[in-house]
């Protein structure tokens, strides 16, 4: 019978009085570590199931995208659940018969067959069931099936990686294709799991090689934290500025577009017949079978312009102004003034302030006039003005000898070909496609970018539907454009970068008398001398044009509310020499007139500026509102080419499309800019995170301790074991977690700082609780007290101290070992030296 009372605790201690505690017999020698075959096996099968789960998520993501709202939810989910179940069952079967699958020669041919059969199914479906998928969906379907098959037979890491790789592609593809919100969440979940998979896979690979001290536990915190950090970064990038996620879209081939035609396709310009109709979403692009009969007041361009730039002031006829136009031009202007049919054919720079928004009906949700799909910023031209009398711009006339419009068939679709007058441009251009869908705009002119060459409206293939509005604009032969019908436009955009690098530009515009005409007078001389002073010592060419634009942009400010007095001087001179602030039309007029005064041919253009800020990533289009009405000017650069010039600050002329690394760079800069803009939030968030990171160990320990306090186990044995687990948590937090192959008491005996009577008692009790029959602890009293005392003595601070000194010890050993090595080396050299 041996029982002894220590600290009010009946505590059985062996050896009665002798109290021998013998040191361990076996040497705890260092040894290499390894992972047992069993561990490796369980790791592998865990990874295998993990891969199958990931494949199922990716499959669900893809199927939801594929359905694209066109199928019933129940049908969609039935398919997802059925495929998931099949995958799970087959995976379990594969795991059970791993030996068979690992080496079976039929596996690879079967895997190759899977995508082939999936592809072969498509023609069958088209023939028999009269339904089909677009080309990219077809490809992705076969890839999805291959991914599932790979996940099922994925006993080898390489196969799992392959499956995961396809899964990632499917997810990115789906995220880029779809508009559904839930997809982003599922894809985020997929990303999280996939990064976890990577960590897990890496870990199970590295376990074999790591020292046994560190190789015990999966780094679960990193398994969660790693993906979380990655996702947070991604989310921050997406949240920052424009929706950068949509920039991925360009990396995927969409059917249709300028190239292929596929009747099952549903994206891109030149869409197929199976496009999503705009019925459920009025803003979606697609041919609409029956346009909603919206009988509302739609603003005409005249209203839009007046809304934006106030109404023109009716000129007081008695005021005499010294405007002298050349007689030949004057004649044509007189003639034209009489033939102006529509309001808006002329534009006065003298305008009156009006109360804005007075007529706006309440409850109109969308004020968008039109939607633009394609790259923005974009200057959509609706009117071109060539003659300027000092106050008023007059719109360009339809050409006297119009070039013949004709239709060409591209992939079975009628495209209106817009011919170019004169010789074909000798400048470097790139082709861009846009689609424009008028919604609330009453306008016959087709808003189109400069250099539009091809135009397509669904089912419209008659030339007499279109007419020249002027030299460079096409309008429809009807009161207004059909609503909600997308107009696809393909344009040759001048590469302004290459334009500037080109040394010799002719700018010779012999025929363009109108575009060079100027109102004579003292004001013009002032303007001319100002222009000359701005372009002094700059050779003729784009440099001068840029100089004028940049001076205007830098020294003048945009102010749409400014009032110009209808006095002796015109608004243009008031703007240029007095107020130095004004609306866009004065910027554009100023640039046009100054350039004209220097002999360049220019024209004023009005229209819409599609702002990148308005880009709707979900709808993949940019809305254009009344406030986006804009003026800019164009300069003739030679041949038959005009270049867009943007003198207004805050507006840009887009360069050539970005390459992928430029896109990436712009994403990053956007993110950084967003950070800079919201620096207090960023800084405080980072500081908070830093604090959390710094004190994470203490916080975690506090959480564990509170849990331990608040939810105590009822039995004494349970309480002791709970306390032991708390101790293990603290050890782990202090970086000296117990290796799985050692018991707690043995592990704790390594740390001389953590020896005390209470601790010793507790460890012994823990051992007893864990490995002795339950009855052993029944008679013991004060177990809870001892647990509290032990929890106090094994505090995190103490454990950390022990961990530090342990690390120092290890360091000292290493240093002394290296010292002895170097000493030995020195000795040997010493010995050699005299010899």
């Amino acid at each position, binding site marked *: 019978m041996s029982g002894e009372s220590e600290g009010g605790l009946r505590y059985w201690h062996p050896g*009665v009085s002798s109290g021998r505690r013998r040191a361990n017999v*076996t040497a705890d020698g260092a040894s*290499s570590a390894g*992972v047992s075959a069993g561990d490796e096996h369980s790791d592998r099968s865990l990874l295998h199931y993990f891969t199958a789960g990931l494949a199922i998520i990716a499959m669900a993501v893809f199927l939801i995208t594929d359905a694209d709202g066109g199928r019933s939810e129940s049908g969609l989910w039935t398919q997802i659940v059925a495929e998931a179940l099949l995958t799970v069952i087959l995976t379990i079967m594969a795991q059970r018969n791993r030996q068979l699958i690992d080496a079976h020669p039929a596996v690879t041919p079967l895997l190759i067959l899977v995508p082939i059969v999936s592809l072969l199914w498509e023609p069958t479906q088209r023939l028999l069931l009269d339904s089909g998928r677009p080309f990219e969906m077809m490809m992705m379907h076969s890839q999805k099936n291959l991914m599932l098959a790979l996940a099922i037979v994925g006993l080898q890491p390489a196969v799992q990686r392959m499956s995961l790789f396809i899964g990632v592609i499917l997810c990115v593809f789906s995220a880029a294709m779809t508009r559904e919100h839930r997809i982003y969440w599922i894809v985020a979940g997929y990303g999280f799991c996939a990064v976890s998979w990577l960590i897990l896979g890496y870990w199970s690979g590295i376990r074999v090689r790591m020292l*046994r001290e560190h190789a015990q536990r999966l780094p679960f915190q990193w398994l969660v934290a790693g993906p979380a950090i990655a996702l947070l970064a991604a989310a921050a990038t997406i949240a920052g500025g424009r929706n950068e996620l949509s920039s991925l879209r360009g990396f995927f081939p969409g059917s249709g577009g300028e190239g292929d035609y596929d009747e099952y396709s549903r994206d891109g310009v030149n869409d197929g017949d199976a496009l999503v109709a705009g019925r459920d979403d009025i803003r979606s692009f697609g041919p609409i079978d029956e346009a909603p009969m919206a009988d509302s007041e739609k603003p005409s361009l005249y209203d839009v312009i007046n809304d934006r730039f106030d109404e023109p002031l009716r000129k007081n006829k008695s005021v005499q102004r010294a405007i002298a136009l050349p007689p030949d031009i004057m004649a044509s202007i007189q003639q034209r003034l009489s033939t102006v049919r529509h309001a808006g054919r002329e534009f006065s720079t003298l305008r009156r302030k009006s109360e804005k928004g007075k007529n706006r009906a309440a409850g109109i949700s969308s004020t968008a006039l039109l939607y633009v799909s394609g790259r923005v910023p974009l200057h959509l031209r609706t009117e071109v003005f060539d003659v300027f009398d000092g106050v008023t711009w007059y719109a360009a006339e339809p050409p006297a000898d119009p070039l013949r419009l004709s239709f060409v068939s591209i992939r079975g679709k009628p495209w209106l070909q817009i011919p170019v007058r004169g010789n074909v441009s000798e400048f470097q251009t790139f082709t861009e496609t846009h689609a424009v869908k008028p919604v609330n705009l009453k306008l016959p002119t087709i808003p189109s970018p400069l250099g539009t060459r091809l135009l397509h409206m669904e089912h419209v293939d008659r030339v007499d539907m279109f007419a020249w509005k002027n030299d460079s604009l096409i309008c429809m032969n009807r009161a207004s454009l059909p609503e909600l019908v997308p107009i696809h436009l393909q344009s040759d955009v001048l590469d302004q970068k290459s334009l500037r690098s080109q040394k010799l530009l002719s700018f010779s515009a012999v025929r363009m008398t109108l575009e060079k005409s100027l109102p004579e007078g003292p004001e013009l001389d002032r303007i001319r001398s100002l222009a000359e002073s701005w372009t002094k010592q700059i050779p003729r060419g784009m440099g001068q044009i840029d100089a004028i634009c940049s001076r205007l942009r830098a020294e003048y400010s945009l102010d749409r509310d400014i009032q110009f007095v209808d006095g002796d001087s015109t608004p243009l001179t008031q703007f240029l020499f007095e107020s130095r602030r004004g609306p866009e039309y004065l910027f554009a007029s100023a640039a046009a007139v100054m350039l004209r005064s220097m002999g360049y041919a220019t024209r004023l253009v009005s229209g819409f500026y599609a702002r990148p800020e308005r880009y709707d990533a979900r709808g993949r289009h940019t809305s254009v509102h009344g406030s986006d009405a804009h003026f800019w000017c164009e300069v003739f650069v030679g041949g038959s080419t005009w270049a867009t010039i943007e003198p207004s600050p805050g507006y840009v002329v887009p360069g050539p499309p970005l390459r992928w690394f430029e896109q990436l760079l712009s994403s990053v800069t956007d993110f950084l800019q967003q950070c800079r803009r919201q620096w207090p939030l960023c800084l405080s968030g980072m500081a908070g995170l830093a604090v959390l990171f710094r004190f994470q160990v203490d916080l975690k320990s506090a959480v564990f301790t509170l849990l331990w306090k608040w939810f105590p186990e009822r039995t004494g044995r349970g309480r002791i074991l709970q306390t032991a687990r708390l101790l293990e948590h603290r050890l782990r937090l202090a970086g000296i977690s117990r290796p799985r192959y050692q018991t707690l*008491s*043995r592990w704790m005996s390594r740390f001389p700082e953590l020896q005390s009577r209470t601790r010793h008692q507790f460890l012994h009790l823990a051992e007893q609780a*864990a490995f002795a029959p339950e009855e*052993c602890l*029944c008679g013991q009293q004060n177990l809870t007290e001892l647990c509290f005392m032990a929890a106090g003595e094994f505090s995190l601070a103490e454990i950390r101290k022990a961990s530090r000194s342990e690390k120092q010890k290890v360091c000292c050993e290493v240093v002394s070992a290296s010292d002895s090595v170097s000493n030995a080396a020195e000795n040997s050299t010493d010995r050699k030296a005299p010899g």
Partner: protein
Amino acid sequence: MPLTEIVEHVHGGDLQFIDTLRRQLNLALRGKPDVVELVLICLAANGHLLLEDKPGLGKTTLAKALAGGIGGRFSRCQCTPDLLPGDITGFSLFNQKTHEFEFREGPVFSDVLLADEINRATPRTQSALLEAMAERQVTVDARKYTLSPRFFVIATQNPVDEHGTYPLPQAQLDRFAMKLSIGYPDPRDEVRMLLEATQPGREQLPNRTVPGADQLERIQQSVMTVCVLESVGDYLVRLAREIRQHPSVPMGLSPRGLLTWQRIAQAQAWIKGRSFITPDDVQDVAEPVLNVRMGLEFMESRRVIQEVLDRVAVPEYVS
């Protein structure tokens, strides 16, 4: 059942006995407390001991001290190639006077038998001895003779001179509970040993133990009742499986070996005064127990054992 009753079988006197024995053995074999401890464990577990070491390291001294300590009969046989089974088990001798066969007991009829250089005996002799170890009985001329219940064999073998030896086959080695190597003593202990050699009077060990005839037996009985929780048993099985799967182990651990392992761990727990074994016990005795069973060189076997121990997780502290 409260703890006090459970530990009742760990009789204070029994522990005292072990304590005394330990002191005596430590006196006889200087500076080797760990070896002595394992010898005691082996004794308490009622297993046989194989010492493998170079000559002159104290194997015989240890065996003699042990025999003296437990107060039993001590016998030794020097194994040579011409040693016959009868020389070990005993033989029937025709008595001319009584005209009857009389059985002459061999050295196995003792409490502690030191079989020196067992690998020099022929396989035939070896198997006779090993049979006696396993069955604790010998059969001579179709008559069974039961050996002492405390019968404890310390066999030694010399790893250096391999000429003319008959290495023990694995099946036979399994009969030993553990294999130990004594190794050279510390310089300090060697100095003390030299000093003691100059005082011949003190060389005699005081034979103070008054052995209860059944005391050792009782100890061995109570060792068998030391509790092994299922989780710890499972740990043992996992270790055994790991050893069997280890690529460099030619012969896996037999169930008999596993039983022996558990018994030895129980003995260690008992000697430490515990009524249950912990994974620490299992780990502590792993090396001597497995050394004899894995058919590997000493260093290699140590490496493999450490590797295996480091791979298998101990049971968690869960209720």
